[in-house]
């Protein structure tokens, strides 16, 4: 792959600005599930949102479609979406069942999910479910909608699309189901496709096929993609940019190559070193899992969320929430190590007073 240039501001499709998502329950204090999330999505590019389960990546994605559960709300922040280059709409300010929001949902922004079996209605045929999407947003008859559906099914590589359209989800294999799901999501040629762990429930070969398919479709439709996963291998495969989330914080973000080559946040580094590498047996190193467990959001430290498990934590970490610190072109991390003169020295991190390691700042 050719090296990727940083995002072009003109092509910006959606910008998350300082978004906080809060869960409330009647008998307990509110929980900030996601805090101060910023990122930008660009046409034709893929941003991968990476993190362990429960870190808030799915919640963030659903917030974009305003599909949060009843007990969750966007507390503050803006989600600016400009579909046709015009004045951007703040999705966060729309009513979740408003007409404006519904005309974005499925039409301009669509989503695919982890479990294609349970994400498709068991009692409607695939064709029905895709036709519905088309008829909902485009003013067409059932008949021509079905023609489009068959085309779409063909395009996502479902053999015998005309017959398959009359199948029920349980009659298809997992891979075909996910393809059908993708066909549905693409039915209205969306500007943004949100993929919430679309390959997690599939076996490895199917996984690779689906990723290939998504890449090819993205090239064809020129849509932006927000790809949620916990699998760094998948990230390397599909993403242009990556945002690493930990317990509701985006701790590091940047070009995939920069982040993978020179991770700046201790959490990103820890994630990287917990992946097994393909090496000769003799050269294998012990895997280095992250110490401790993810604390519950209730017990999250006031400062950096990773403090309790960070091997380099020092004075300000537990009390001061670190700001975004640039670590290269379009690459930044939230870590006090990057800003404090008196921070402990850690090899490979761009620290003040330490000369940059060759080629890190391109």
């Amino acid at each position, binding site marked *: 792959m050719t090296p990727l240039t940083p995002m072009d501001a003109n092509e910006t499709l959606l910008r998350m600005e300082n978004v906080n998502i809060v869960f409330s329950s009647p008998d307990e204090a509110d929980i900030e599930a996601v805090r101060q999330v910023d990122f930008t999505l660009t046409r034709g590019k893929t941003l991968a949102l990476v993190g362990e389960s429960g870190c808030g990546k799915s919640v963030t994605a659903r917030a974009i479609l305003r599909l949060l559960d009843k007990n969750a709300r966007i507390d503050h922040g803006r989600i600016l979406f400009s579909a046709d280059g015009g004045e951007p709409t703040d999705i966060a300010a729309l009513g979740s069942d408003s007409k404006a929001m*519904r005309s974005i949902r499925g*039409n301009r922004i*669509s989503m695919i999910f*982890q*479990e294609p079996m349970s994400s498709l209605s*068991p*009692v409607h045929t695939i064709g029905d479910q895709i036709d519905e999407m088309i008829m909902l947003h485009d003013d067409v008859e059932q008949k021509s909608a079905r023609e489009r559906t068959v085309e779409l099914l063909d395009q996502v590589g479902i053999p015998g699309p005309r017959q398959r359209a009359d199948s*029920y989800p349980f*009659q298809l294999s997992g891979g075909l189901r996910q393809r059908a799901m993708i066909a549905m999501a693409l039915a209205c040629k969306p500007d943004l496709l949100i993929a919430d762990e679309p390959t997690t429930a599939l076996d490895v070969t199917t996984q690779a096929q689906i990723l290939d398919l998504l890449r090819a479709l993205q090239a064809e439709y020129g849509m932006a993609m927000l790809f949620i996963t916990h699998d760094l291998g998948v990230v390397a495969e599909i993403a242009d940019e990556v945002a690493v989330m930990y317990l509701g914080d985006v701790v590091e973000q940047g070009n995939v190559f920069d982040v993978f080559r020179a991770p700046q946040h201790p959490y990103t580094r820890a994630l990287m070193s917990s992946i097994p590498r393909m090496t000769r047996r003799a050269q294998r190193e012990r895997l280095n899992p992250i110490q401790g467990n993810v604390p519950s959001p209730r017990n999250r430290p006031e400062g950096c969320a990773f403090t309790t498990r960070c091997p380099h934590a020092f004075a300000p970490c537990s009390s001061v929430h670190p700001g975004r610190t640039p670590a290269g072109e379009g690459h930044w991390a939230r870590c006090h190590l990057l800003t404090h003169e008196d921070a402990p020295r850690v090899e490979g991190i761009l620290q003040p007073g330490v000369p940059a390691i060759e080629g890190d700042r391109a």
Partner: protein
Amino acid sequence: MLSFLFRRLIAMVLTIWAVSFVAFAIIQLPPGDYLTSYMASLSAAGDRINPETIAALRERYGLDDPYVIQYFKWIGGIVQGDFGESFEWKAPVTDLIWGRLGNSILLEGLAILVMWLVALPIGIYAAVRKYSLGDYLATIGGFIGLAIPNFLFALVLMYLWYVYFGQTLGGLFSPDLEGSPWNLERILDFLAHAWAPVLVLATAGTAQLIRVMRANLLDELTKPYVVTARSKGLPEWRAILKYPVRVALNPLVSTIGWLLPTLVSSSVVVSVVMNLPTAGPLLLKSLTTQDMYLAGAIIMLLGILTVIGTLISDLILAWIDPRIRYGGR
């Protein structure tokens, strides 16, 4: 689909066969055989007993044969549409029951219709607005509906009607329209009478259906496909009605299988209380007078009715649920 249908049909035939055993056992249960009761009723009425008639009847029902032969004579007659004689009414059982059975089916069918029409929207509302005031009211109403025995409800209704309107509530037709053929006037008259028993019959079932619908829908509402439906841009109510409600309907249809036996049971009691011309009062009368062929026939037919109703609900279920139709999971 065909094999499903076939299996259900076989099961139905076997069940009906078992029902016939039960009905036959009930015919045989009272001490003495049918003819002793028959002769007792004849002599009580002061009629002369003709020994030849007795011998003919004895032969016809095989009363001197072992039970197995008696059973086959009886069931053989039934297959040909001959359910035996009612000595109380001095008429073939068939002449007595069809009209009344028709009324039973009509009432029970209406009750099921009312149950669904009432329970469905309330159940959906209670699930979608969980823990709202309406949900609590539905739950409380459901508990009370379940706890009031329907014959008691019928009594209370009749009592209140009598006290406030000075009329007795009961019957299915006005006396002058009792035997007339169906026309608009008779239908209206029927509806004017039938609302009360239908209301009584539907109460308990409605309460149960609301509970089942609420529970099913609560399960379905959290399923991922609901999020998918919303993510398509469907309006909230349309997403809910088209997807989770549709899926939650399937188990609701299968509840007919256990709702129907209870409904048939209660219609017997309610009919007695409200003096309805259905199979219920006839059954009670035949049992108290030990008119056993009539009683056995009614029990058998009520059983068959229930089994057929259950079969119909199975077929509807297969029709609306592709997972059953295609034998998938």
